[in-house]
């Protein structure tokens, strides 16, 4: 994404032109305005149409917010409302007839706990390895005195657009004994070129070169400089990369589907899939006889809502803490400054 910066740079010439012409016009306009500062017609017209535009913008944005928020909100309230009321459409804005039967079933399910544990292991270890591999490499590639930087960068970037594809990957993993091995979550995706580029442009633009000169005078090598000076200044990029990698691991369904056959090694997403989208629901067999099929189906639905919440909860908890880095992070990768 670093190119957007450069794209901006290239676009600069035209922007500058626009700038100039606007300035020219504005000077003229200022002159005109100075001559007739009270021109009431102009002001009035602008006022009314702006007012209309304002309202339209607010209405559209309000609709967007509702459209995005409501489905998520509904899942939340449905997860602890009476399933019968949910199924008949009587739960709309607030939870009704609160019950935790769904959550009880969810937490009684061994598969969920095991999946949770697996996902936590894969995500934490995976993210740690990601950071240990990506950050130093990004730093090295950000140094202009690294000979061969361009060809190396090209070899990295090329893999974003061209790759072996599913089958050669699968056969390679088979040879490396990664099938049904938890390391398949850690090693193949150890470095994401995209994240590498983001980190590289952060190091290039946000760490002043003077620091390196000073570190050199102090007799520090590159590694010392990286560990003691660059990293402490890079909390923003560490947070962003950590977030991207962690969410990627947490939500990974593909790897489990293709490379893991042993259900005990399934991460949460694959467990979810079998509960949420599988034919057999968790409720079947766990509820006693005497409960009608309809009620059973409704409980199964509630379990689904509960599972959705439980699996997403950690990310929701992290969300407010990481939110301030979102804009920063994307900007680092995209637009300098």
């Amino acid at each position, binding site marked *: 994404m670093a190119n957007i910066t450069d794209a901006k740079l290239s676009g600069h010439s035209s922007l500058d032109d626009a700038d100039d012409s*606007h*300035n020219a016009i504005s000077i003229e306009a200022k002159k005109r305005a100075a001559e007739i500062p009270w021109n009431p017609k102009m002001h009035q017209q602008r006022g009314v149409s702006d007012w209309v535009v304002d309202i339209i913008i607010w209405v559209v944005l309000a609709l967007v917010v509702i459209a995005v928020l409501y489905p998520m909100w509904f*899942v939340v309230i449905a997860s602890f409302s009476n399933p019968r009321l949910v199924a008949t459409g009587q739960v709309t804005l607030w939870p009704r007839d609160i019950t935790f039967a769904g959550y009880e079933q969810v937490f009684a399910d061994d598969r969920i706990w095991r999946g949770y544990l697996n996902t936590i292991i894969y995500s934490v270890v995976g993210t740690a390895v990601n950071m240990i591999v990506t950050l130093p490499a990004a730093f090295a590639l950000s140094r202009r005195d690294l000979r061969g930087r361009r060809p190396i960068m090209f070899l*990295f970037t090329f*893999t974003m657009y061209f790759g072996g594809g599913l089958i050669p990957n699968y056969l390679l993993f088979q040879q490396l004994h990664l099938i049904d091995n938890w390391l398949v979550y850690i090693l193949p995706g150890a470095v994401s070129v995209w994240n590498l580029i983001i980190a590289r442009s952060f190091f290039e633009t946000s760490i002043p070169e003077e620091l390196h*000169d000073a570190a050199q005078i102090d007799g520090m090598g590159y590694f010392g400089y990286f560990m003691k000076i660059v990293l402490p200044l890079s909390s923003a990029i560490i947070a962003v990369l950590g977030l991207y990698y962690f969410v990627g691991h947490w939500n990974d*369904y593909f790897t489990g589907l293709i490379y893991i056959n042993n259900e005990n090694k399934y991460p949460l997403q694959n467990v979810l899939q079998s509960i949420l989208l599988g034919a057999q629901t968790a409720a079947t067999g766990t509820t006693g006889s005497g409960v009608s099929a309809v009620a059973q189906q409704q409980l199964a639905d509630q379990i689904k809502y509960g599972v959705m919440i439980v699996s997403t909860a950690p990310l929701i908890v992290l969300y407010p803490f990481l939110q301030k880095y979102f*804009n920063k992070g994307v900007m680092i990768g995209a637009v300098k400054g």
Partner: protein
Amino acid sequence: MSTATEQTVSPVANHARSGNKVKAKTGKGSSVDNNKMNFKTSMRRNWVLYLMLLPAAAFIVLFAYVPMYGLQLAFRDYDPLKGITGGKFVGFKYFQQFFDSPQFWDIMRNTVFISLGTLILGFFAPIILALLINQISSAKTKGFVQTITYMPHFISTVVIVSMINVFLDPNTGMIGKLFPNTILMENPNAFAPIYWISEVWQHCGWNCIIYLAALSAVDTSLYEAAKMDGAGRLQLIRHVDLPTIMPTCVVLLIMNMGSVLAVGFEKVWLMQNALNMPSSEVIATFTFRTGIQGFQFSYGAAIGLFNTIINFIFVVSANYISKRVSNTSIF
């Protein structure tokens, strides 16, 4: 990507940077211009840097370039005993098999239809949303809208698809009930629109961050000048905001072009069922079904290679066109 940009787009910027550097160096009395030293000297001096680069490079070679080497399987019969490179060379047999297969045109049509719609909606929606959000003057409200619209981006595909199932359920789902004559998830005609809309729902907010960042860089004097000229708010958007984010739009469009034939596997796979299959089978799912589940490794490799090459052609040509038209390129 950025290597290339440096060559094509920003020679000026590079120049300026290295110029600064030279100045700084001479100021401190250091005479060596690092850019000019040869590889051996660089190795000796900067071996630490190469060492820091080594793990990432090793992973890329092993997990990206080795599979590329394995692509020759597409031109060979797979022989489990002799491995990937040991089978008999059969040329384009498996490509031909794919082109001749009865599903070929359906799969191609589905893939292009689903991804093209995603591409178009996914291109315009974030731009519009960013322009709208940018109109909010209160920082608090702006933050609120952003927080809400980013949120779905972090929900996993599995949960998204089950949410789709819940809401489209013909008996209990809020949206499903509006269509009494059909079961949406099983209706082949509804598959692509459901896919598009849910994609926009999930990623529109997140994808608009980049445009908001570009918009925050607008010189406010431009607004003042335009207002002086009597421009209303819509005109400000059209003549100031839009030109500002245009280069960003172009780059993102090129990058997305590369995915014209790369519909995300996970979501389609999870949304598929026997009834919507005629319109939901795409190249990625077909590759998985035949290659992995059906153990036809050579056939699967050929389909995968075909897909990759088409995507690659799209990226390169989109890049070329944009370089000619707007002087913006990614490599």
